[in-house]
């Protein structure tokens, strides 16, 4: 099929099927019935994952042709195409899953029938993700899973979770981990909302007690989970933009908003605060310029090294912006809540800035990554890298 024929076909299909009348999604973790119905149509018509083999809902198209389709969908604001680039869970399933698993789950994931979550971090394995202690023990054709996961978004509504669990305790820590799709809808899985420092609850703790998962739902083979995880994390980085939130209300216009705040607070002519204002505004601007330059420099794809710098930069931006907002408000920052939205913004940001400086790798871990991967500085000696995990200190 020529590019032109393809374009004609997808345009015709969209013209016939797309009404642009989907309601807004209730939250980011679930897909409503109208969305599901539409996605089912898209998957049925094989527009969802065009680069994939026809066996798995795809069309075996080249990247260039797939992009034609995605552009047509984007032109009319129709969702659902290009999931072979954006659907982290489905990509991981396709790459590493067994045929049994793919047959059972792939289509449902693409149509939004099956909701997913990530079961990676544990209370004892934060910065050191390879230190997980959730165990999966073979029992015939199944594995029995016990342990505790944390910082899980969307766990309450998820049907399956991408789980890393330890399957061998007698080898070094990276070598004894396996990667599963665990059903969340079974008695051994208990989800408890986690109250955050901001008094929100966007995350959950997940307690897993004798939960079961079929060996068919093991991805990438036994004890190969660390490699699967690295690939999944790389997908995740390339898919997700910078998810850092500013103040609850400020939205994107942060620069204008800060200047407006200074003006409202009667501090726009305070020479000391003006210097701070210029610094904070510059941090955000410089980060945007860095990102633009990185994008221009790179022919294709994204580089995790640039992402690492951007994340570190964003930590500083958010913490410094929180300090500036506080200083601009003065005693007004003592107040809080809906009745004092400016204070509430400053307060929220003061705490939520840690989401960026701690979450997804602390600033300290990011500096290691930048130092080692970008600047090629030598790694620290790792005392637990080569010893059996059973002998590694925990606490």
């Amino acid at each position: 099929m020529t590019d032109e024929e393809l374009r004609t076909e997808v345009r015709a299909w969209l013209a016939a099927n797309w009404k642009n009348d989907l309601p807004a999604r209730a939250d980011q973790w679930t897909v409503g019935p109208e969305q599901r119905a539409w996605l089912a149509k898209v998957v049925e018509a094989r527009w969802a994952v065009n680069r994939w083999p026809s066996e798995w809902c795809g069309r075996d198209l080249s990247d260039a042709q797939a992009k034609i389709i995605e552009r047509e969908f984007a032109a009319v604001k129709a969702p659902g195409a290009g999931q072979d680039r954006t659907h982290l869970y489905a990509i991981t399933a396709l790459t590493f899953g067994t045929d049994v698993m793919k047959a059972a789950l792939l289509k449902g994931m693409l149509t939004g029938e099956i909701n997913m979550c990530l079961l990676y971090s544990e209370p004892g394995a934060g910065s050191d993700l390879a230190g997980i202690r959730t165990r999966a023990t073979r029992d015939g054709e199944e594995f029995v899973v016990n342990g505790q996961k944390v910082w899980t978004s969307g766990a309450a509504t998820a049907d399956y979770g991408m789980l890393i669990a330890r399957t061998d305790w007698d080898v070094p820590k990276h070598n004894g981990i396996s990667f599963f799709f665990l059903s969340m809808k079974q008695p051994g899985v208990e989800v408890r909302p986690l109250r955050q420092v901001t008094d929100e609850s966007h995350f959950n703790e997940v307690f897993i007690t004798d939960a079961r998962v079929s060996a068919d739902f093991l991805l990438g083979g036994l004890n190969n989970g660390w490699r699967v995880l690295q690939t999944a994390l790389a997908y995740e980085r390339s898919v997700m933009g910078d998810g850092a939130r500013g103040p609850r209300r400020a939205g994107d216009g942060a620069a204008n908003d800060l200047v407006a705040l200074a003006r409202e607070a009667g501090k726009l002519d305070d020479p000391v605060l003006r210097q701070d204002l210029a610094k904070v505004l510059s941090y955000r601007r410089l980060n945007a310029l860095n990102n633009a330059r990185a994008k221009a420099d790179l022919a294709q794809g994204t580089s995790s090294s640039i992402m690492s710098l951007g994340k570190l930069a964003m930590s500083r931006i958010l913490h410094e912006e929180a300090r500036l907002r506080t200083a601009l408000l003065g005693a007004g920052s003592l107040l809080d809540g809906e009745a004092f939205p400016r204070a509430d913004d400053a307060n929220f940001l003061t705490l939520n800035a840690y989401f960026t400086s701690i979450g997804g790798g602390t600033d300290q871990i990011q500096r290691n990554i930048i130092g080692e991967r970008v600047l090629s500085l030598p790694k620290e000696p790792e005392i637990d890298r080569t010893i059996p995990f059973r002998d590694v200190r925990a606490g």
Partner: protein
Amino acid sequence: MSTFTAEDRAAMAESVRRLLADKGDEAALRRAMETPSGYDAALWAELVELGVAGLIIDPAYDGLGGGPVELELIMEEAGAALLAAPLFASGVMAAALISASGDEGAKERLLPGLARGRIATVALTGDAGTWTPDGVTVGAHSHGARAFLDGTASFVLHGAAADVLLVVARVDGGFGIFEVAKGTPGLEITTLPSFDRTLRLTKLDFHHVPATRLGIAGWDAVEAMLKIALVALAGEQAGGARRVLDMTVQYAKTRIQFGRAIGSFQAIKHMAADLLLEAENATSAARHAAQQLAGGGEADEAVYLAAFACADAYSKIAADAIQMHGGIAFTWAHPAHLYLRRARADAQLLGAPPYHRERYLQAMGA
């Protein structure tokens, strides 16, 4: 002059520390902060029993007759435990203001009650929250033999719980201190939502509220009160900073990642070393200010130094403590954010660091 010996001081601090460890621990604090009053009346009664409410009140009015040095030391304990109680509002600000007023009748009438735990507070600044003459937005005027107040005071600590309100108001081109009893008609008290949930901030609206002026005391008395209150606040900050740093260092010794205690990594170890310097600075500054103020000489330089040095140190230590803990401190259940909230509040109460830095320079003639 205080007649406390070093042993007296140490014994009192030890008693307060034990009481707070026993009945003012984190669980108790979290319970108290969810109540309307924001404090545990039973714990307050025990503190009163120890004499804390009357610590700086003259023995002639049933107080312990302590000075800034004793006060600072006890406030270190209160700060370490994040004490939620009317100690600062009543035992420090109100007690100091009445004592500084020079009004013997008021002292006799009010101070013994305060020493016994009756609650008073001070209304000083308006919505601008500056704790300066400029910031006062209540005015007093005479009507026959009586005075009446109009206007607004905000950021008043424990205004809803207080039996007695001491209101700084503009009068005749200067300032006066006025006593208003709880429930006086025309007085409207609104509790303000506070980011530090262990604080109770209120706004007072005065509509022709009858009030009694304390002698002829004016801004000099307010300034005297502010100095001792700043020393007390510096002590609270130094104590809080020290405690949250201790907690963090302890965690860094026991939390294992990559097979090692995280405190063995330079990233954490070096932050801790820098923070120790900040904590020592805060303690030195707070205690020095207390000594200077107790000495009766010119204490402005020491007081303003303590005011900004302790605020900056506590803010930095509490903020870095969360980072050093990592994810666990991003949960509501972990106490680190309670310290950050308090540090952030203390850095605004009675004026923010840049203002105190300005006054520090002025005090040294620069």
